């Protein structure tokens, strides 16, 4: 069957697969959200250790999902990989920096002779939780607002802004506001998810005070995320976009482009509304009842929101990585993808994904059957 898929179908399929991985990553940022809540939620050493040991069993999955997102984009849309990573250099370097310091922090934080002391490693986790996610959000925002690059005849990138990507969040412009709004939405959403996950995973009976703090934080962060969400949705309804207007692939500014995309693909609207509804329901359940399963609603809701955010700027003849300075340099799923052969090979490889998801789910169930309690933080293997 895969052999008979045509090029355009493969390109759509691979953008979908990359979007699924990206959306799963956003759901898994409950780890980052939890990290950014650490100092606020944990008032004692025990509470801190509990949070770290709960998140510490999952951080690597989130990290790996991000790495796969990069790898999948490299294989399937190499022009995006080369243009964005080579062009928006500083934004990616800073994002990477926050993930490098995250990776050692769980393991090193409580170990004797760790040179810098626990506080520094907790600071690293906070940095990753806030700055890392904020910048990822700003980078995603540029899928809508565009970036400053030009491609030459060989498709080699030249970035035309000295900030090399950081202008997405730092230049005084309306598009920066939009990008920052996306970033802040993701930060607060991650914190909402983080609170939900901790409520789900911790032995709450042992830390009743932290439980109430977590449940309250879940609601507060949801409320903080909503204005940004509204701002983003409202902007999308009115925003100009970058559309492919003819068979040659010419890009032009199209008014109400994303509204048009939503109307052309109403199922995206369904995904978005369902996603937001699930996140709000999950947060409400966590904050206003004694339920502990809110994370499942919040997580699935975030996947749906993430899918909408990543599919909306790419499907329906839209440039998903537009150039503000040279429209014809903009990247679309048609001009940025790998060859049909590579996409087919990768589609065969992708058949293993359900198997991978299955063993992750099985292992997750096995490991999360018992809640994380104080006893777990006393183990010498603990973080």
């Amino acid at each position, binding site marked *: 069957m895969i052999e008979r898929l045509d090029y355009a179908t493969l390109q759509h399929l691979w953008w979908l697969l990359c979007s699924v991985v990206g959306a799963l990553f956003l759901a898994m940022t409950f780890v980052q959200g939890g990290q950014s809540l650490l100092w606020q939620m944990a008032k004692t050493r025990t509470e801190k250790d509990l949070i770290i040991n709960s998140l510490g069993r*999952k951080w690597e*999955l989130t*990290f*790996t999902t*991000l*790495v*796969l997102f*990069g*790898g*999948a984009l*490299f*294989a*399937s849309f*190499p022009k995006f*990989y*080369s243009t964005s*990573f*080579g*062009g928006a250099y500083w934004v*990616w*370097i800073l994002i*990477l920096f926050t*993930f*490098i*310091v*995250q*990776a*050692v922090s*769980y*393991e*090193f934080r409580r170990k*004797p*002779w*760790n*040179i810098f002391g626990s506080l520094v490693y907790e600071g690293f986790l906070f940095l990753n939780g806030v700055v890392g996610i904020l910048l990822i959000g700003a980078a995603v925002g540029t899928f809508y607002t565009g970036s400053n690059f030009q491609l*030459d*005849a*060989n498709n*080699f*990138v030249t970035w035309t802004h000295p900030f090399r990507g950081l202008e997405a969040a730092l230049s005084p412009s309306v598009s920066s506001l939009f990008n920052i709004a996306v970033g802040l939405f993701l930060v607060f959403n991650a914190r909402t998810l983080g609170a939900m996950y901790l409520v789900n995973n911790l032995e709450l009976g042992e830390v009743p005070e932290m439980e109430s703090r977590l449940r309250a934080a879940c609601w507060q962060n949801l409320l903080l995320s909503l204005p940004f969400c509204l701002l983003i949705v409202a902007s999308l309804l009115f925003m100009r976009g970058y559309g492919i207007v003819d068979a040659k692939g010419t890009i032009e500014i199209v008014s109400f482009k994303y509204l048009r995309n939503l109307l052309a693909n109403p199922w995206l609207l369904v995904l978005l509304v369902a996603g937001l509804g699930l996140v709000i329901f999950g947060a409400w359940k966590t904050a206003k009842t004694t339920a502990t399963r809110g994370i499942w609603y919040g997580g699935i809701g975030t996947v749906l929101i993430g899918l909408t955010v990543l599919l909306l700027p790419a499907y329906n003849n839209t440039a998903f990585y537009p150039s503000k300075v040279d429209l014809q340099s903009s990247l679309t799923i048609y001009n940025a993808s*790998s*060859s049909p*052969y*590579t996409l087919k*090979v*990768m589609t065969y*490889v992708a058949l*293993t*994904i359900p198997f*991978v998801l299955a063993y*992750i789910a099985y*292992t997750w169930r*096995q*490991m999360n*059957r*018992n809640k994380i309690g104080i006893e*777990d933080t006393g183990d*010498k*293997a*603990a973080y």
Partner: protein
Amino acid sequence: MIENLDLGMVNWARAQFALTAMYHWLFVPLTLGISWIIAFFHTIYVRTGSEEWKRLTKFWMKLFGINFAIGVATGIIMEFEFGTNWSNYSWMVGDIFGAPLAIEGIVAFFLEATFFAVMFFGWNRVSKGFHLFATWMVAAGSNLSAVWILVANAWMQYPVGQAFNPDTARFEMQNFFEVAFSPYAVNKFTHATSSSMMLGAFFVISISSWYLLRGRHVLMAKRSIVVAACLGLVASIFTIFNGDESAYEIAQVQPMKLAAFEGLYEGQTNAGLVAFGVINRDKKVYDTQPAFHGFNIHIPGLLSLMANRSFNSFVPGMKDLVYGNAEHDVLGAVQKMELGRKAVASLDAYRQAKKAGDAAAAEVQLAAFDEHKEFLGYGYLNKPEEAVPPVALSFNAFHVMVFLGTLFPLIFIGYLYFSYKGTLERKKWLLGLGTITYILGMIASQAGWIVAEVGRQPWSIQGLLPVTIARTNLTSGTVQTTFFLFLVLFTLLLIAEISIMVKQINIGPEEN
């Protein structure tokens, strides 16, 4: 694209990649190697139910965890560095090079990430059988990830299964299986993983020897040594064999690399392998200076045997490979550059004809391009001497690797022999040597990568794409900044890692 080239930037980008790769490789081989050893320890525990083996397993697992975290930290930067510093490369070969990286993520990283948590925290949470399974899966996942990244690297050394698409100016994959099962990739994988297994064994032996010298944790140390030395001996012998196979492969597809790491300027029949020699750093391929300072020893015929499996065969030297050698039918960089320039010119003419809509002219130019396309990369070199990699560094790295690699099996045999005789504890000289074997193994391993990567210069893709084209359009100041950023960051993290590791070794297994 060559005209506004900032060579300083290219060199800084290379330095940055070397820095991150070498830091990454400080941790990865230990992960690859010791994960199997821990899996053996864990299996013995599950089979015997002995608490002593459980403590031993947990102890080595703890050290594994400290090392693993920093391996992950230095690893993420590598994946994205292809994009940040080598974006033209990423676009031109993303079709081929991106695939193994994505596959690595799907099939290997998730195995590691998922089962890592079970291995560490599963002691009382999952069944004994599932827990052991998880430990084996961590080893399998780590080594599976090595498969794919080495497939990607091998492709850069020996670009098979691809074709250049003149319309997009990119290299596109034609045959996935040729890429995945390239003989170069197979050798690279076996050599890298067996040498890493050896390094894992040295890690165990180094720490255990130190315990024995101090008279601490004697039983655990002796048990650990026996398991590690058995695996290490097998791995070290295997490493020598597949190392030899790698050298043969290099002689076939990268003769310049071979000539450089042997300091062979003039091609020879019955060429000798250098057993000892001080390479002359100032020698250039075009001058008449001697290749070595003073005294040197060559073992006659051995290089010919290694390169072509025949004592009397001709091994081309760097001069032959730069200026050509008609007698032995060796095409030099001079001739290849000429053909490469023709390929570049035909490619430009083809694209212009295509743009102008002149199909007939385009067809003619394409045919002309096809004739010389295998030399395309040479068309972008400025001087034929650029085809020579840094000789002294390649030579020294290769000989350090080979010298140490030959010594290693003897060390394992020594450990096994005295363990068998029951006198190991009294052999202070061996235990003393044993404590530094991990450092020696690491030096050999790093040297191996220097041979592989420095020896490939000036190419990012052997013969097809020079590093000067592969780069990102960045200023050297930008790359310098990130170079020092990573240098400082990784060095600080390394210091913290070593400090934590030393403390844990000092505490020892009893505290677990």
